[in-house]
């Protein structure tokens, strides 16, 4: 019964969303809000019924039979509900309807809200129609099997249980930013008020996307066993493009909100972020590429997604072309000003997004041209990977970040650079010293020095900017800094820490594979690894080979146990690396295959990943910064606090530290 209930709930969610779109785009009013909330509730209940099917291992449901198994641990049974195409589409629908419901609950009533909920309703209706008519998760089997097919064992990892929900909150969250843009365009109201009410949604979606991407990177690092956290895989790029455009958007929204400028560009970015999210979904799900995310590939899905992409993007661009001429340019500003700095930020971030887009789709387009016989197969096979993205993107990001500490201290309309010098000169000195130290320790690589220079410049630049804002008032003023400043400072600090971690890790990681027999010893980077042998171990739904390796470093000894797990149901095996954390980074050991022709000898891959936690920690800080900026907006909106803010601003200038209150 429960699957039928889920099916019914999904239909109710679709009906509510359809009603919400019709009323939202026509009359508006309180009913729109109620329908949006109802659609969200029905979607949530539908998801819960699917999770119940997975937890109770109801193998009469086709999806459960294909993707679950009696031996699977509980948490992965729950996560298994979205670890497949149909379930993840239901999650997509839930997030989309959820944003509509959240808008109904939290946004002020008015035309902006009603039309945005209306557009969101259209998107939700289309998604539910696709779910129910093309890929229903609730389909029953006539003959239920006794046991299921199991899930891709690579997905049996805690980071991956949370990765899709977070990623979707971000990725699909861009749909509501899109809806707000469409609503503003329909109403002919893309102004400071629109930007003020749109920015919290953009901040939320983008911060969630940041966490989602970071969880994916963490999963790759811990679970895939090759020690990388980012490989410029098309799947990763698919989420990185909306991230870059979203980053540009939350900055250009500031200009629109505070100064009323850049409105056409801002609304264009709001549309583009969602179009790129759809494009990413198309790339991942249509079967144009193979990856762990592709689940079962099916060309009809690709066509449906492509049509959806064309419709949503085309309609929004038509709206944009219709309304853009009516958008007023903002007030004048000097090129050296906060506006100028944010224009520069947007220039670099959008070029970066364009570069990732071209680098990602070019090989696919060439391959498609080759497959259809339009070009020769030699011309069609091309790889674009790490060297290309690193060599083109790194200089761009570096230039952008060199400007960042200046930009965040700049005043609106016109900025004076010279008073900032006394704050930024020490940051520059610190950056140069740190770069030289890093190069001396890491073998004089130019990339290493350059990356550390930029990262430390950003970290110190943010630090000095905070000191400048706090002024001579001391700790008390430090803690009373506005939340927006906290948000910006922490996010920018996160960027600096990430850049330092990413450069040091990429430039100085070492990896080597040793063929070892029991009793043999490998040495690398001051660490000694004694291979003690391999023994079989049984897990809940796998059997494993576990290696015992005695690690010695500076007098302390520890046994670490990397495993290879083989999953009989799914007929695949995974690598479970052993990681020893130190203050300066990770020691990372993976058990490989047995060496051919040499009995008893195993390939042991040993890697050192310096400052790897700075990479993930930096990404975490970026997301925290985003959420803090959002919290500042939510707090400011509540009436009690608004009065409070009036009172403090009434006292006179509080931010420029040159005039202490």
């Amino acid at each position, binding site marked *: 019964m429960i699957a039928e209930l889920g099916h019914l709930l999904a239909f109710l969610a679709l009906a509510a969303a359809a009603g919400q779109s019709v009323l939202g785009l026509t009359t508006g009013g309180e009913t729109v809000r109620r329908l949006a909330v109802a659609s969200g509730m029905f979607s949530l209940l539908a998801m819960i019924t699917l999770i119940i099917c997975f937890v109770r291992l109801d193998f009469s449901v086709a999806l459960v039979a294909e993707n679950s198994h009696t031996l699977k641990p509980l948490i992965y049974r729950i996560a298994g509900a979205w670890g497949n195409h149909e379930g993840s589409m239901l999650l997509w629908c839930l997030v989309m309807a959820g944003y509509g419901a959240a808008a109904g609950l939290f946004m002020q009533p008015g035309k902006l809200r009603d039309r945005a909920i209306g557009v969101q309703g259209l998107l939700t209706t289309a998604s539910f129609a696709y779910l129910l008519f093309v890929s229903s998760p609730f389909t029953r089997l006539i003959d239920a099997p006794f046991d299921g097919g199991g899930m891709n064992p690579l997905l049996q990892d805690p980071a991956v249980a949370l990765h899709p929900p977070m990623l979707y909150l971000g990725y699909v969250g861009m749909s509501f930013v899109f809806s707000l843009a469409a609503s503003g365009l329909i109403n002919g109201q893309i102004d400071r008020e629109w930007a003020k009410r749109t920015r919290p949604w953009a901040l939320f979606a983008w911060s969630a996307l940041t966490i989602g991407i970071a969880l994916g990177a963490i999963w790759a690092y811990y679970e895939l066993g090759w020690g990388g956290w980012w490989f410029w895989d098309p799947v990763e790029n698919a989420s990185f493009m909306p991230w870059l455009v979203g980053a540009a958007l939350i900055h250009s929204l500031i200009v629109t909100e505070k100064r009323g400028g850049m409105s056409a560009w801002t609304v264009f970015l709001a549309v583009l972020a969602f179009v790129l999210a759809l494009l990413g979904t198309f790339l991942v799900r249509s079967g144009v590429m193979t990856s762990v995310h592709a689940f079962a590939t099916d060309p009809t899905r690709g066509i449906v997604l492509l049509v959806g992409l064309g419709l949503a993007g085309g309609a929004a661009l038509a709206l944009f072309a219709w309304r853009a001429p009516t958008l007023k340019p903002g007030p004048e500003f000097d*090129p050296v000003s906060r506006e100028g700095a944010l*224009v520069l930020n947007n220039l670099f971030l959008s070029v970066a997004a364009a570069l990732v887009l071209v680098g990602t789709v070019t090989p696919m387009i060439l391959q498609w041209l080759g497959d259809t016989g339009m070009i020769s197969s030699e011309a069609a096979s091309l790889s674009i990977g790490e060297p290309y993205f690193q060599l083109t993107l790194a200089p761009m990001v570096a230039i952008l970040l060199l400007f960042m500490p200046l930009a965040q201290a700049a005043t609106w309309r016109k900025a004076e650079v010279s008073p900032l010098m006394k704050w930024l000169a020490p940051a520059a000195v610190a950056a140069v010293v740190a770069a030289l130290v890093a190069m001396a320790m890491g073998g004089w690589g130019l990339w290493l020095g350059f990356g550390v220079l930029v990262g430390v410049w950003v970290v110190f630049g943010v630090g000095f900017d905070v000191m400048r804002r706090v002024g001579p008032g001391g700790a008390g003023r430090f803690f009373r800094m506005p939340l927006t400043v906290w948000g910006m400072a922490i996010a920018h600090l996160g960027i600096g820490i990430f850049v330092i971690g990413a450069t040091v890790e990429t430039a100085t990681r070492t990896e080597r594979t040793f*063929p070892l027999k029991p009793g043999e010893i490998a040495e690398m980077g001051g660490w000694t690894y004694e291979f003690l042998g391999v023994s079989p171990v049984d897990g809940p739904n796998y059997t494993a080979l576990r290696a015992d390796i005695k690690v010695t470093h500076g007098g302390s000894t520890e046994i670490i146990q990397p495993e290879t797990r083989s999953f009989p149901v799914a007929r695949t095996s995974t690598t479970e690396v052993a990681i020893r954390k130190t203050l300066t980074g990770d020691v990372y050991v993976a058990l490989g295959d047995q060496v051919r022709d040499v009995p008893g000898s195993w390939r042991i891959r040993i890697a050192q990943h310096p400052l790897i936690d700075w990479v993930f920690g930096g990404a975490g800080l970026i997301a925290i910064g985003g959420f803090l900026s959002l919290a500042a907006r939510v707090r400011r909106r509540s009436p009690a606090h608004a009065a409070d803010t009036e009172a403090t601003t009434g006292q006179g200038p509080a931010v420029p530290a040159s005039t202490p209150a």
Partner: protein
Amino acid sequence: MIAVVVALILQATAAVDQPLPDPAQEARAQSLMRELRCTVCENEPVSQSTADMAVDARRKIRQLVGEGSSDGQVRDFFVERYGDYVSFRPSNWLLWLFPFALLVGAGALLALRGFSRRHRELAPVPDDRNNESA
């Protein structure tokens, strides 16, 4: 066909991952290993895979670097045998030029607009807190 033959020749040799004695050469070899694709794997460079093809490719890269080949020569060796597909560093110059051309072009356009619009001296907006609560 050539690829198959080469793969067989490469496979015939024993699998050892012995680093080069010269650290500078070893570092070059390692960075080349990150640029060349393991052709039997799913989107992995040869540096990261334990597949036989990758093990053999690593050995070959070290051998070539040890014999004094330049980075370009090592890349060419693999591209000749496996095609452009094996290299994550595309050789098409248009791909390399485009992002920078786009950046410079768009930047120049913005600069032109910015300066032509500047009719008079502007003063800074004195207090951005007032602006924030506006």
